């Protein structure tokens, strides 16, 4: 019986290439079929539905087929996912709505400064591989708090680990579900709140029955969809414009054209010097300090996010864990080195096909986004041609053509609307929507699983009922998954902030809470339990304090904690007049909206709150070092375990009951 199971497993692994090859071919055939349907006159709305439902159905089928009742399958996919495929799954896990939908938009808006995000979200994998990931694999944990508990003497450290995990993953998953809502509301014409819950059902179908095992095989399928969807529009655009299907190389010319067009717009009065931010000029949106702070926080955050680290628990060996990190980054790189091309092409399209056009000649694609409030012209939602003309008439001396300062586009729209901007057939738009949905769903799956696993494995099984039978453990895990998902969706439906900011917070929180304790735990045997616990509390606490104060209690931050206004990176002047703002009646308001004059605009050392990890992590390291030095060194037993973690050979340190 046992041998039979092993043979069928290795057959399964051997057939992976053929399975996913067939799947990719089938997906391409499906796109061609829809393209034909479009030509014979099937309406766009139906095509959009077909795309979304077909892909969702495939994920759900994979999810149901790979359901499992085994604990090690549920938590770590049986530890037999090959490096290459785990890399692909990590790619999908990693690339979220913020990467797929938001990244190119950010680059569109910020130009060079936006590259801080591109760098930050790739370089971190170097840290994962050299500092943490393979060691946790050797340790044999199911969750990150598992390691903290074992290394730092018990359930208090585990509990802190769970708090950090839930704080960062929950912030992050809210952003994903929000992204799902934007895509579904645009393409299915659903109400935003309804769309959020529809996306949720898709997520649950993948993750609930099969845990890590189902999520892994679904994420690979999602990676294939998302990368095809991301690359197709720009490959076509690049071929149309420059005759070469390699947008990553040809957008150098697009950048040069943008720079020329920028000069032209200034000369023609289509833009003022104040409204125009030259695409290539560094440090006009972020000061150099904030630019490098964002890079550092995103990189270190990468190496601290539990849903990423736990992907490397699923490989068959430590060696494959390392190779798998390399494959992950390669697959992620394919999207990230294309994002700046996206930004450049769509900026060129906007600058040449929208700015400078007569108001009555505005192309109609824009209005469907305008209706959602995502594109504004002359300060009003561009919902129809009459609305635009009326809005611009209200502005004194308006020349009757769209000027740069009249045009406001939400960054989330850039990728989703690029095919329409370029006049490509609707089937490409549907494809992009399906890709964006895949990106948001795959990340949400990974995050929800991380949260639910921490609650079911760490809190329920390890802390409340260590004797719980397998069936009950898995039932609790599934029930918690649903509860967390519903709470996250309810939070997302309130639209708390933009996607990028929420994701940035998640990284900083993870960095401050996890990184010092994880790195010191592996690399410095002398680290004591007390030291680590104090370090987590101090680092995470400071980061959270900075974040919450600057966003939700800015008045108190100024009054009691000596915070000052952030500075304009270009001029160096304060962005708000603190004295004036503090005199306003709402200065001390708690939990204000983003419209509050001080919210997100105050801080220490001119540091953006996205980068609060830069305050927390160094403090965490310092506290761990000092407190550890003051205490007695850890027991010989613990130190011997650290030696074991450092050697790939041999059994895992932690052995879990699997049945």
């Amino acid at each position, binding site marked *: 019986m046992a041998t039979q199971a092993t043979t069928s497993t290795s057959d399964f692994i051997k057939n992976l290439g053929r399975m996913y090859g067939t799947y990719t071919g089938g997906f391409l055939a499906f796109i061609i079929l829809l393209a034909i349907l479009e030509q014979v006159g099937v309406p766009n709305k139906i095509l959009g539905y077909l795309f979304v439902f077909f892909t969702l159905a495939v994920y759900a089928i994979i999810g149901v087929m790979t359901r499992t009742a085994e604990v090690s399958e549920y938590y770590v996919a049986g530890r037999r996912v090959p490096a290459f495929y785990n890399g692909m799954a990590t790619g999908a896990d990693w690339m979220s709505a913020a990467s797929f939908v938001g990244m190119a938009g950010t680059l569109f808006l910020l130009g*060079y400064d936006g*590259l801080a995000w591109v760098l930050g979200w790739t370089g971190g994998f170097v*840290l994962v591989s050299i500092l943490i990931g393979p060691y946790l694999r050797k340790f044999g944990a199911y969750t990150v708090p598992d390691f903290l508990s074992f290394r730092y003497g018990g359930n208090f450290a585990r509990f802190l680990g769970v708090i950090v995990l839930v704080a960062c993953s929950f912030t992050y998953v809210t952003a994903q579900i929000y992204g799902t809502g934007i895509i579904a509301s645009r393409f299915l014409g659903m109400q935003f709140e309804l769309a959020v819950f529809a996306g949720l059902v898709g997520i649950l179908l993948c993750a609930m029955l099969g845990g890590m095992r189902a999520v892994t095989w679904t994420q690979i399928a999602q990676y294939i969809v998302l990368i095809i969807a991301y690359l197709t529009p720009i490959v076509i655009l690049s071929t149309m414009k420059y005759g070469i299907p390699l947008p990553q190389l040809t957008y150098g010319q697009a950048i040069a054209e943008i720079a020329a067009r920028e000069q032209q717009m200034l000369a023609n009065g289509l833009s003022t010097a104040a409204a125009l931010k030259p695409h290539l000029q560094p440090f006009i949106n972020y000061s150099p300090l904030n630019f490098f702070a964002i890079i550092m926080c995103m990189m270190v955050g990468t190496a601290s996010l539990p849903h990423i680290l736990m992907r490397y628990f699923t490989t068959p060996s430590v060696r494959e864990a390392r190779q798998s990190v390399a494959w992950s980054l390669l697959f992620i790189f394919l999207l990230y080195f294309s994002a700046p091309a996206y930004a450049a092409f769509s900026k060129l399209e906007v600058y040449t096909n929208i700015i400078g056009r007569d108001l009555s000649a505005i192309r109609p694609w824009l209005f469907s986004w305008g209706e959602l409030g995502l594109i504004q012209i002359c300060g009003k939602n561009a919902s129809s041609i009459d609305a635009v003309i009326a809005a611009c008439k209200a502005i004194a001396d308006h020349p009757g053509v769209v000027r740069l300062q009249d045009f406001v586009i939400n960054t989330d729209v850039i990728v989703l609307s690029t095919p329409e901007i370029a006049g490509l057939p609707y089937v490409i738009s549907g494809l992009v929507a399906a890709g964006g949905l895949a990106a948001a769903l795959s990340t949400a799956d990974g995050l929800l699983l991380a949260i639910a696993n921490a609650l079911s494995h760490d809190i329920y099984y390890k802390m409340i009922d260590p004797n719980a039978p397998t069936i009950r453990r898995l039932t609790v895990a599934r029930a918690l998954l649903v509860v967390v998902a519903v709470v996250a969706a309810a939070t997302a439906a309130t639209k708390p902030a933009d996607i990028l900011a929420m994701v940035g917070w998640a990284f900083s929180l993870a960095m401050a809470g996890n990184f010092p304790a994880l790195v010191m735990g592996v690399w410095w045997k002398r680290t004591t339990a007390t030291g680590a616990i104090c370090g987590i509390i101090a680092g995470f606490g400071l980061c959270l304090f900075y974040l919450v104060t600057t966003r939700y209690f800015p008045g108190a931050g100024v009054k009691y904690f000596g915070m000052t206004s952030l500075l304009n990176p270009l001029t160096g002047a304060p962005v708000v007049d603190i004295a004036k703002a503090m005199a306003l009646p709402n200065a001390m308001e708690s939990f204000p909206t983003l419209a509050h004059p001080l919210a997100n605009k105050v801080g220490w050392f001119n540091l953006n709150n996205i980068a609060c990890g830069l305050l927390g992590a160094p403090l965490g390291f310092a506290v761990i070092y000092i407190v550890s030095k003051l205490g007695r060194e850890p027991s010989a037993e613990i130190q011997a375990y650290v030696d074991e973690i450092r050697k790939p050979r041999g059994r895992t340190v932690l052995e879990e009951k699997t049945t």
Partner: protein
Amino acid sequence: MPDSTSIKQKEEAHWRKTSRLMFTHLAIWFFFGFVIHMFVKPLNNIVIPVLGFPLGFYMAAQGSLIAFVVMLFLFAKQQDKIDREFGFAEED
């Protein structure tokens, strides 16, 4: 049965080599992640022939990313070699 002191020595030598590899890669990571981008303005004066990218922009958009990918494959190989040298690698 090797005695425990020789195992201890092997462990220490293995960890010394591993640490050295870690610091080397950390330094390269820091260079491509931060140092080179501090010189973006002077680097932008150099334009890559044919493609037309200013070099400073290119390094942040693609150059450093390629360096990270190459580093990771290289690191996996190098660390595996160290593990094998001391007999701490897993069986194939």
